[in-house]
């Protein structure tokens, strides 16, 4: 193993840059996508096609005062945005972008990612409660009940993939699917006939876990102002937003590695990090597309979808996969 001091430093800089650029420019993509879908142009003023808009936004947010209203819980109010950001950043340490681009190959990296995701849930809860605002508390309660509900089918679906691969290492799972799209887990019908359904369940859950529309009950503007972020201004708000976008990126990476072959090319041509990036950006575009196409659901329907449809389906899926592995 390379123990040079430069390796961790370079990875740290690289991931910080990747995370920062993604968090900033996914916001731009979102606004452009929203604009185009609604027959508008989106941001156009700052730079060519509004390309410098994220910079302007960042400057504006950072130059504002971090306002702590009276009646909030000071410490938790300040800690929550940081807690929202850190787990998403840390997750990049174990994500394999290509066969040789991975900061650290951890044996249980799948579990590690879910453990980190649960800290982000804590951040929403604490941020909402510390604000001392009824809307924020309602939003936090909704968001947590939603995240807990969708974590179950997500984990059960991940178990099917882990059973097929026999490893919890993201690197192994990706290597297992090399050699063309018919080896990818989403099309691995010879291992379990329900793999496409696994993929759909996992993708829906990953959208719900990142609190994105149509599942964005936590920040339903029309009923809860801005949800748990209502009392946050300046960079506190900025950190929550960046955390949300980074969680989207981590979710897309996870879907790509677990189901879409990681850095593998569909036709066996030039596998490499570019395929990985292409796949995650297609997924991220889909997430944005879904947000601006479907209206928000109700909280009851949302929870019913998870408890009455996704969890039974994922359990049946798990049983069928186990039976397939046992028989064949």
């Amino acid at each position: 193993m390379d123990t040079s001091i430069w390796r961790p430093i370079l990875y740290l800089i690289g991931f910080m840059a990747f995370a920062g650029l993604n968090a900033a420019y996914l916001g731009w993509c979102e606004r452009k996508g929203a604009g185009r879908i609604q027959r508008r142009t989106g941001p156009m003023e700052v730079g060519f096609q509004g390309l410098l808009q994220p910079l302007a936004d960042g400057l504006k947010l950072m130059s504002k005062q971090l306002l702590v209203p009276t009646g909030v819980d000071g410490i938790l109010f300040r800690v929550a945005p940081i807690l929202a950001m850190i787990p998403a950043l840390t997750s990049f340490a174990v994500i394999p972008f290509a066969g040789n681009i991975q900061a650290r190959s951890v044996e249980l990296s799948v579990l590690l990612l879910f453990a980190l995701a649960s800290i982000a849930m804590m951040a929403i809860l604490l941020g909402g409660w510390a604000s001392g605002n009824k809307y924020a508390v309602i939003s936090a309660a909704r968001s947590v009940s939603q995240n807990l509900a969708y974590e179950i089918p997500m984990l059960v679906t991940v178990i099917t993939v882990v059973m097929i691969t026999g490893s919890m290492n993201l690197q192994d799972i990706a290597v297992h699917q090399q050699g063309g799209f018919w080896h990818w887990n989403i099309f691995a019908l010879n291992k379990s006939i329900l793999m496409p359904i696994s993929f759909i369940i996992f993708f829906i859950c990953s959208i719900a876990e990142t609190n994105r529309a149509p599942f964005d009950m936590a920040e339903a503007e029309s009923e809860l102002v801005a949800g748990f972020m209502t009392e946050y201004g300046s960079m506190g708000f900025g950190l929550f937003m960046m955390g949300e976008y980074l969680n989207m990126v981590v979710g897309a990476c996870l879907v790509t590695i677990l189901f879409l072959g990681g850095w593998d090319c569909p036709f066996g041509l030039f596998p490499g990090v570019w395929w990985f990036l292409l796949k995650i950006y297609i997924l991220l575009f889909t997430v944005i597309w879904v947000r601006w196409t479907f209206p928000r659901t109700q909280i009851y329907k949302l929870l019913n979808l998870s408890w009455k449809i996704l969890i039974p389906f994922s359990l049946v899926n798990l049983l069928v996969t186990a039976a397939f592995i046992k028989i064949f």
Partner: protein
Amino acid sequence: MQATICQAAANQSLFSAESFVGIIFLITVGLIIAGAWIAVVSRRLVRCISGLAVCFTGVAGTYYFLLSPFLAMMQMLIYVGAVSILIAFGIMLATPEEGDTAGNKGSPIAGPLGFAVGALMFAALSVLGVKTDWQVFPRTGTGDMEAMGKALLTSHSMVFELISLVLLIAIIGALVLARRGRN
């Protein structure tokens, strides 16, 4: 383990790998103590829960130092991600007033008695820790998921069955409680 780490830290320079590991170990211990302190001392219940979560994170760190990363992850996933969040959830929905614990003093002898019991426990544990001739047992098994799964389904299957029974009872109890409120 602590002794070896301290020894290593004393022998090596500050920037060696061993002393770095020692510093991380001290950080996890610090997390446990600080988290427990916050959980006990804090006036607001949600802060107590946050302290509890910090304490659980530190315990996960010690599991990692005991060479069981799987347990460390599960500690994070279950205790930080589910248990403390559910407790916080319950508190948020149940308590009408926050930070109002002034009228809840209890008996006047409760404080000194609690202090005495705590001091006794501390003294006893300290004496045990110092006096006992600690032996380093060889590692049995690799502590990975495969070995753990096999052990749970073969030699320790009774525990597994009992846990599933407890969970079943918990689910039925939750259903009964939830149904009762609807009529």
